[in-house]
């Protein structure tokens, strides 16, 4: 790698690591998303130019924050109407000369304030997702648009509208007070998990971004068991990504090549799960992570997995969770026990119900009924990979 390429890779890394934090500080300082975003962009552009020429600063994050702040102040001084629009009043003067003296401790980390603002329930869910990826993740509008398969103009409009609403409707830039925190935190975690699942279908980028967000949240809220639980869940699932598809075909967990699993990431996920359990967490993310951790074990303890699903069903009342319990019960106590649970569910439009039912019937030797259930699952399957998987199973029926 040339020196130039090494530098730009290093710069990209800093950009990834620092963007959210720098922008959060600027928004907290200015009270305005747009000016903050512009100033942050300026600072990163300046860094790309200066750092290559003058050398790397001692503390890149502090350099970027201070520079962005100075840029914003300059701009506001030049433009009075802009000053009237921001909450900026008296700002201590900092010159670019002493940026290296500033360290992380003197700059407040306001990423939590920012994520709670972005995931405020007064914003539509798709806007919450877009805004979180743009502000905390530093993804460009175009990148977010591609990840969610919408035209760039639509995504740009969504972001503009969301930022406008934050300002006009008075959505606060703060960590919610105690009595609002449980609901609001659940909303934040739902957004992060939605981003993760968007990527889990195959495109890795949103999943990686969600894990980054999860790591930041876990560091910022170390005592919230569900935050640790979500991080654990994402790490454990993502660790199996490479084994999930072989030559474009879906591979069931039982048949996956375990050497393709990311062992280090599984360990990291288990460590996050241990932290969650130590906090006495029994919420939905913690339970799902516990199930994912059981699945990583060999041999799998199906009675324990079934018990965890039972606990999760009680918590969520979800028939989809109950279907998963049925699968675990079938493994632990045989297909008949599983089928009895499946046949109690009202989930006729859910393809996995029919695929599961088909598989249990096949194992019970009830081939004709199995064939009908596979056919129904095929009708409902959305992706080619899933359809081909079901067709293979159907063809194996004799």
């Amino acid at each position, binding site marked *: 790698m040339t020196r130039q390429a090494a530098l730009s890779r290093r710069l990209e890394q800093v950009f990834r690591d620092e963007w959210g934090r720098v922008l959060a500080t600027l928004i907290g300082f200015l009270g305005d998303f747009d000016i903050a975003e512009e100033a942050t962009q300026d600072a990163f552009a300046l860094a790309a130019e200066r750092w290559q020429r003058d050398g790397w600063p001692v503390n890149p994050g502090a350099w970027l924050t201070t520079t962005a702040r100075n840029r914003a102040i300059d701009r506001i001084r030049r433009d009075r109407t802009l000053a009237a629009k921001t909450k900026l009043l008296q700002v201590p003067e900092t010159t670019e000369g002493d940026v290296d003296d500033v360290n992380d401790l003197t700059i407040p980390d306001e990423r939590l304030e920012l994520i709670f603002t972005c995931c405020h329930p*007064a914003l539509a869910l798709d806007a919450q997702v877009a805004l979180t990826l743009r502000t905390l993740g530093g993804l460009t509008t175009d990148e977010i648009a591609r990840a969610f398969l919408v035209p760039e103009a639509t995504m740009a409009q969504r972001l503009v509208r969301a930022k406008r609403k934050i300002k006009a*409707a*008075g*959505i*606060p830039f703060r960590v*919610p007070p105690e009595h609002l925190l449980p609901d609001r935190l659940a909303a934040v975690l739902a957004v992060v998990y939605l981003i993760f699942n968007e990527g889990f279908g195959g495109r890795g980028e949103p999943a990686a971004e969600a894990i980054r967000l999860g790591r930041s949240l876990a560091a910022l809220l170390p005592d919230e068991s569900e935050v640790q639980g979500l991080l654990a869940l994402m790490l454990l699932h993502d660790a199996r990504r490479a084994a999930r598809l072989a030559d474009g075909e879906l591979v069931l967990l039982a048949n996956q090549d375990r050497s393709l699993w990311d062992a280090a990431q599984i360990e990291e996920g288990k460590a996050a799960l241990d932290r969650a359990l130590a906090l006495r967490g029994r919420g939905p993310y913690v339970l799902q992570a516990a199930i994912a951790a059981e699945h990583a074990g060999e041999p799998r303890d199906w009675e324990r997995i079934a018990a965890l699903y039972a606990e999760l069903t009680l918590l969520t009342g979800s028939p989809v969770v109950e279907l998963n319990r049925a699968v675990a019960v079938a493994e632990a106590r045989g297909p008949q026990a599983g089928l009895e649970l499946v046949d109690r569910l009202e989930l006729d439009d859910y393809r996995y119900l029919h695929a599961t039912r088909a598989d249990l019937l096949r194992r019970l030797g009830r081939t004709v009924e199995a064939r009908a259930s596979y056919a129904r699952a095929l009708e409902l399957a959305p992706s080619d990979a899933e359809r081909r998987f079901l067709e293979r199973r159907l063809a194996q029926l004799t």
Partner: protein
Amino acid sequence: MQYVLLIYSNKDVSDGWDHLSQDEQKAVLGEYGTIFQTPGVTGGAQLEPVTTATTVRVQDGRTLTTDGPFAETKEVLGGYFLLEADNIDKALEIAARIPAARMGGAIEVRPLVAM
């Protein structure tokens, strides 16, 4: 910031109201009274039914007055509260306390344009 909480009512709300006992109705009215006295709430009113409404339009300098509106809307504006608050969270909390919100109606929270 100033917010208005627009209370939208419908048949469910009015039917629900009719089915309440006198004591229950009193309790609900009491809740409205409490909201009125909440710090930050600066005004509010209950509107007479939409059957009493009159609509005014001016076209080419001529005032057109019509009875109504009797549009096919199922949701009608039944009242409002005015509120002064630091941010939307306070407005959302008060909105959730308005009895119509749990009786099948809905509260629209709107910021007022700063004068």
